[in-house]
């Protein structure tokens, strides 16, 4: 159990550092790093605070602590995937609308050029 918690702590710290470095280098925008940072911080706190983890286990009614930790980690990831799917969908819609607008503006510009020529 302790080994599992230590591994979780290590992974959480690595994730935090990776996200912070990526934000600093502008590989990830700040607004998209928040979910990762919150998720990593939550896993770090839970892996270092046995009472908090036990409380969650009791609240969720799960039989043992490692399973609780695993399910919380999976839930955090699922929420993040969902959030990024929403963001990607918005970006895709915006991207299509922009591409269409660019094409239409180019069409108008070319029509004007032909008209003048």
């Amino acid at each position: 159990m302790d080994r599992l918690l230590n591994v979780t702590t290590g992974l959480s710290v690595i994730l935090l550092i990776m996200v912070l470095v990526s934000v600093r280098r502008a590989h990830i925008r700040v607004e998209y790093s928040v979910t990762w940072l919150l998720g990593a911080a939550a896993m770090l706190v839970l892996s270092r605070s046995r009472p908090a983890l036990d409380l969650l286990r009791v609240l969720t009614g799960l039989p043992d602590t490692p399973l609780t930790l695993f399910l919380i980690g999976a839930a955090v990831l699922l929420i993040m995937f969902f959030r990024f799917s929403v963001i990607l969908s918005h970006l895709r819609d915006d991207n299509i609308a922009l591409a269409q607008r660019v094409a239409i503006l180019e069409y108008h510009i070319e029509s004007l050029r032909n008209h003048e020529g």
Partner: protein
Amino acid sequence: MLVIVPAFNEEGSIGHVVASVHRHVPGLPVLVIDDCSIDGTLAVARAAGARVLCLPHHLGLGGAVQAGYKLAFELGFDYVIRVDGDGQHDARDIPRILDRLLASGCEMVIGSRFTPGNGGRTGAVRSLGIRFFRTVLRPILGQPVNDPTSGFVGVNRRALAVFSRSFPLEYPEIEALVVLQRRRFRFEEVPVKMAPRTAGRSSITAMKSLYYIIHVLLGVFVNVLKFERKLHRQPPADSRREA
């Protein structure tokens, strides 16, 4: 009126399609929407005398068709007929679609291979898919539709206004029918003949068929639910302005 032709890597057929429209419906402007083809589609379309709308990157069929609808709406066209760039649609049928649009006042006219007595044939798998979607769409649309996957369609300005704002992006034909129906718009079908594509390859392969069915079904039901909620929120029809 404007004819739009979405095209992606159709250099082998696009010239024939544009020339055919010019030959059978003289004086009608043709707009080819080049969906960022990597072959000579753009040059061939221009050489054939079409206006060309060049998309800066590949958007897929729905995105290309919607770009054409947006431009047509901005330019003030009252009627737009969509013809596929693969040469399957016969330009001689365009006047029949336009006549039905004008005479019926409905928002969309579908050029249908499978109207009774028309004798249209297609592959076994595709035929099965079309039968399936006919059955699914019948209660949703409130009327039968014989050829829900036909891309040979004409729309009037009311439909253009809607499609300029909201148009299904990946496999648009079936979902577009639902979008129209949920706005209480009407559609009719006229019999047309379709030939096998004259060049290039179909974007719908056997591998994509299952994905197609799931995607379209999901799109249909999402549209039903979305517009059901909107319709419930709207005030009575007599106090609404027409879209």
